[in-house]
């Protein structure tokens, strides 16, 4: 038996919603009827012999019951709504009906109102994203690291795309004519949408740990005791917090896999945070040498 449902992953920008309507109508003609529309993907059911015309609008609806009834009165069947306030409706296609029967906005004012509603939300999002971008920017100056940079770039991309959207949506007539955003732009949009989490895999790949060792006294000197190994999977700035206490100076060393010293410190009392280490890919180990009782604590992130 042939599959009679399918999911299409496709994203449309708000100013391109008429293209989505066009696509839904085309699919309906081919026998694929929308079951549930969504931001990233929509579900369809195979149902031949019927054909629908779709409509889609953005609105922060206050009274869903009255909203659906207003549409039903004119023959629109409610399909579903997305979490971000887009609502899908359909009406059986009848070639005898005039084109206006399939319009839901019949004056410029109401079309402009829909754009204004979207713009209001987009501007709030831009302000929030800008706040987040500023905080990432400050962190980049303070502690430059790759995941932070990725987040910052994605946030700037999101802000740029939303600003572009606002400019397009401010002119409803232009949005009607601008039917085709390129596939490249759609791809960028998807990447940007997930921008805030794009840094997550990079974060997960980082060595990030804390370790400590202590002894009140030692029988014989500890020499080059390598007690922790870690792997750096991508070159970046890594930050070390180091705290050492001992009666006689003790030595802390980070070796790379070639056995070269990457960082070393010999002190009897030492405490410093955020020591910047520029580490290439490779395996590293922490080592310490000490003659007396000691305490050592390290964090790496």
């Amino acid at each position, binding site marked *: 038996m042939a599959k009679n449902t399918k999911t299409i992953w496709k994203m449309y920008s708000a100013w391109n919603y008429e293209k989505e309507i066009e696509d839904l109508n085309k699919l309906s003609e081919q026998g694929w009827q929308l079951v549930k529309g969504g931001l990233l993907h929509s579900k369809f059911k195979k149902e031949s012999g019927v054909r629908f015309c779709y409509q889609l*609008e953005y609105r922060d609806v206050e009274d869903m019951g*009255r909203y659906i009834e*207003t549409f039903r009165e004119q023959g629109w069947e409610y399909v579903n709504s997305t979490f971000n306030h887009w609502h899908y409706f359909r009406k059986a296609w009848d070639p005898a009906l005039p084109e206006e029967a399939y319009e839901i*906005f*019949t004056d410029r004012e109401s079309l402009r109102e829909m754009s204004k509603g979207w713009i209001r939300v987009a501007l709030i999002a831009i302000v929030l994203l800008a706040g987040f971008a500023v905080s990432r920017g400050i962190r980049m100056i303070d502690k430059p690291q790759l995941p932070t940079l990725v987040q910052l770039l994605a946030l700037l991309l999101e802000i740029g795309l939303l600003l572009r959207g606002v400019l397009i949506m401010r002119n409803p007539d232009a949005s009607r004519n601008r039917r085709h955003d390129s596939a490249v732009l759609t791809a960028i949009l998807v990447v940007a949408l997930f921008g805030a989490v794009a840094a997550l895999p990079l974060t997960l790949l980082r060595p990030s740990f804390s370790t400590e060792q202590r002894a009140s006294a030692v029988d014989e000197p500890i020499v080059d005791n390598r007690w922790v190994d870690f792997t750096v999977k991508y070159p970046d700035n890594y930050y070390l917090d180091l705290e050492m206490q001992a009666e006689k100076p003790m030595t802390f060393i980070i070796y790379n896999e070639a056995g070269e010293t990457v960082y070393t410190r010999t002190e009897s009392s030492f405490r410093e945070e955020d020591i910047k280490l520029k580490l290439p890919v490779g395996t590293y180990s922490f080592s310490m040498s000490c003659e007396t009782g000691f305490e050592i604590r390290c964090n790496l992130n």
Partner: protein
Amino acid sequence: MKRSEPLSESYYYILLCLAKGATHGYGIMQMTQKLSDGDVTIGSGTMYGATSNMMKKGWIREILSDEPGQERRRLYQLTDAGREALRAEITRLRRMLANAEEV
């Protein structure tokens, strides 16, 4: 007195239809088409937006039908403020028309 903004065609026809008595969205739509000889249609999106805004302005209110067979159906009813807004618009339109005839 503050000069009121001209009404959009949809707002005007909705108020005009309701001046004859409370009715539902579909009734407004049909009456509008009839009055305008099919020239003006009010789509669902426009209708919902216009009725929402006019309820916020206090020009119309929602009531439930008590006609047999139509119970609990939503109807819109013109308020005194709505009647006043419509009257102001008609006065404005009359003046505009009179001005046109003078020229």
